[in-house]
């Protein structure tokens, strides 16, 4: 990891102080016609925090970020970024943020360097700092050798890095990254995260969306959004311990394929899957004890090495929360009829 230029680390000390919220949403709402894409979302992100926004496709993640960045006007509620109101002071906000959109949005017909120069000008980086910032971005993104390439000729991963580079070029205190690592190979993703950590250590607040569960684990705090509503938020550990309505067990046994079939067929099993050579089973709370599983399997002649209750994975939590939400809504619809 290479060091950031000084401008980035100036308020590193502030991590010691109690952190004030820098992104605040209160009942934020966005409707498109009579479709509600973001429904009364309330949350806070503190300075220097890495906040992960998770949710299935179409949940409203991008829409939320776009409202915070002043690209879309909210239709209800309020929000503030860096202390500025998103409806009334969007231009003030824009001086304090970097944004990387989900869809690549730099100029494909310009070269790497020309894109960087363009944004240097737009962000009014002082002339004496420009060269230094440019080199920093090129190095950070590993694009030094490709500085003269047309952006259109770069592969997906390189484009993402350049986009991130241009988003942090002006050293903004808050950055919004909408699926920054989609289409990036695992190694580059690791580098990407090193950089994000590095920025956060320097006091930069990171608000990002992702579909990758391993990335969610790297976040300080997470928010889960589903059909426009924020249905859970907290640190990854909080989510795993507080929100999981089911028990999660891990079973090590012989003939895992056969065991999987047996267990899936049992009543009260939410979900079971093979996880390496082990079975990962989500069962209704208190419905089945580890001992019962052992008995069921051994009755069928499958030797069982171990059955233990484990901490759910984030994926378990999300699937569980979403299913619970679907059941609840289904019930409400029934009731309404």
């Amino acid at each position, binding site marked *: 990891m290479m060091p950031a230029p000084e401008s980035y680390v100036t308020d590193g000390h502030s991590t010691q102080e109690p952190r004030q919220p820098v992104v605040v949403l209160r009942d934020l709402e966005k409707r498109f016609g009579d479709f509600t894409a973001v429904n009364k979302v309330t949350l806070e992100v503190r300075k220097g925090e890495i906040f992960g926004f998770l949710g299935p496709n179409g949940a409203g993640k991008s829409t939320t970020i776009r409202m915070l960045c002043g690209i879309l006007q909210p239709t209800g509620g309020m929000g503030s970024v860096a202390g500025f109101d998103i409806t009334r002071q969007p231009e003030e906000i824009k001086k304090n943020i970097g944004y990387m959109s989900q869809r690549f*949005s730099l100029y494909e017909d310009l070269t790497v360097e020309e894109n960087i120069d363009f944004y240097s000008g737009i962000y009014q980086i002082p002339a004496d700092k420009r060269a230094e910032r440019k080199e920093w971005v090129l190095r950070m993104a590993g694009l030094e050798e490709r500085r003269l390439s047309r952006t259109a000729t770069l592969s997906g991963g390189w484009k993402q890095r350049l986009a991130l580079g241009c988003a942090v070029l002006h050293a903004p205190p808050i950055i919004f990254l909408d699926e920054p690592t989609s289409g990036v190979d695992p190694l580059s993703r690791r580098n990407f995260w090193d950089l994000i950590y590095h920025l956060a250590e320097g006091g930069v607040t990171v608000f990002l969306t992702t579909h990758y569960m391993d990335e969610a684990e790297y976040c300080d705090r997470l928010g889960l959004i589903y059909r426009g509503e924020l249905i859970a938020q907290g640190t990854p550990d909080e989510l795993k311990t507080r929100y999981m309505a089911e028990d999660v067990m891990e079973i090590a046994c012989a003939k895992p394929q056969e065991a999987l079939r047996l267990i899936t067929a049992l009543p009260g099993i939410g979900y079971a899957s093979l996880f390496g050579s082990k079975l990962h089973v989500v069962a209704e709370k208190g419905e089945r004890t580890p001992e019962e599983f052992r008995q069921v399997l051994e009755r069928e002649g499958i030797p069982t090495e171990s059955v233990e209750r484990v901490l759910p994975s984030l994926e378990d939590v999300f699937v569980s929360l979403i299913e619970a939400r679907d059941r609840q809504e289904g019930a409400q619809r029934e009731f309404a009829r």
Partner: protein
Amino acid sequence: MMDRLKAMLVKEFIQAFRDPRMRFILLVIPIMQTIIFGYAVNTDVTDVATAVYDLDNSRESRDLIDRFARSEYFSEYEYVQREERVRELLDRGDVRAVIRLERGFGAAIRSGRPAAVQLLLDGTDSNTAGIVAGYAATIVSRYNIDVSTQRLAHRGIVPGPAGVRLETRAWFNENLESRNYYVPAVIANIVMVITMLLSSMAVVREKEIGTMEQMIVTPIGKWEFILGKTVPFVLIGFINVALVTAAAVFWFKVPLRGSLFLLFFGTALFLLSSLGFGLFISTVSHTQQQAMMSAFFFLFPAMLLSGFAFPIANMPEPVQWLTYLNPLRYYLVIIREIFLKGVGIEILWPQMAGLAILGACIFFFAVSRFRKTLS
């Protein structure tokens, strides 16, 4: 402010000149248009293909036919022998006029009785037919004068002053060459089509390819963005004016009698309107295709109602009033008068004022509609 505008301009120019399609639009199209209007579009009526159907075949009839043939307006195509052939030639469009002389033409002239010559015209192109009829009338009246003079001379009378003789001199375009009229006007056409079409794509293109989203989250100001998007087209407009003017003057020998500076000044005023319209279209469109359609939707009536090809004075009165809203109308007058009449601002100021007011309204309206969000 300057940093951002400069960054915008650098980027816009790189993009404009890197794109081969753009280079084509910028350089090839103006040259092509000039050549088309310089060579192909020719509304001068000369050498009209004419068939002769002489049933008389006397000295007198041959004399009259000869006068037609010697004028530069008519050229003999064929001596027709049969009635059906006349129809055939006109039907096929081989000739546009037929001169027909009845039997007894010469005898009538000799005995001083009225004689008739028939001129059959292809009236499909009513404009040309009218002009041809005018030429024929001149030739025939000349012939009449000569015949009566001769007759009087025969009786020993020297004719006195022969009444009124019309002497026509065309000012500003002495030889009435349509090229002189159309080639300068090509400037107006090209400047309008190119600047409006390109500027109508400018903003919507960024919306369509997604780069607008990134622009919106930068602190760039509305005016910096708009100027960045329009100033390059002002320059492109000027380059077009220079190109077409050079071609007109050096290649087609169209006279440029007025001030080149005034021509550019008028262009700048006109660009306010055309870029204003372009910007407006770009702001309200969602796709480039939509923008292009809207631009053409405006361009065609603007051209038809500008006086470029069809004189405004011949239009119905309500339509004439409508043309006052058409910036091209003013610009065409400015261009043609600077080229052919060489007049200055003392004559052209009403046109310039019209353009300035119209342009300012359109441009500021477009700017007021521009929003730095995607909603």
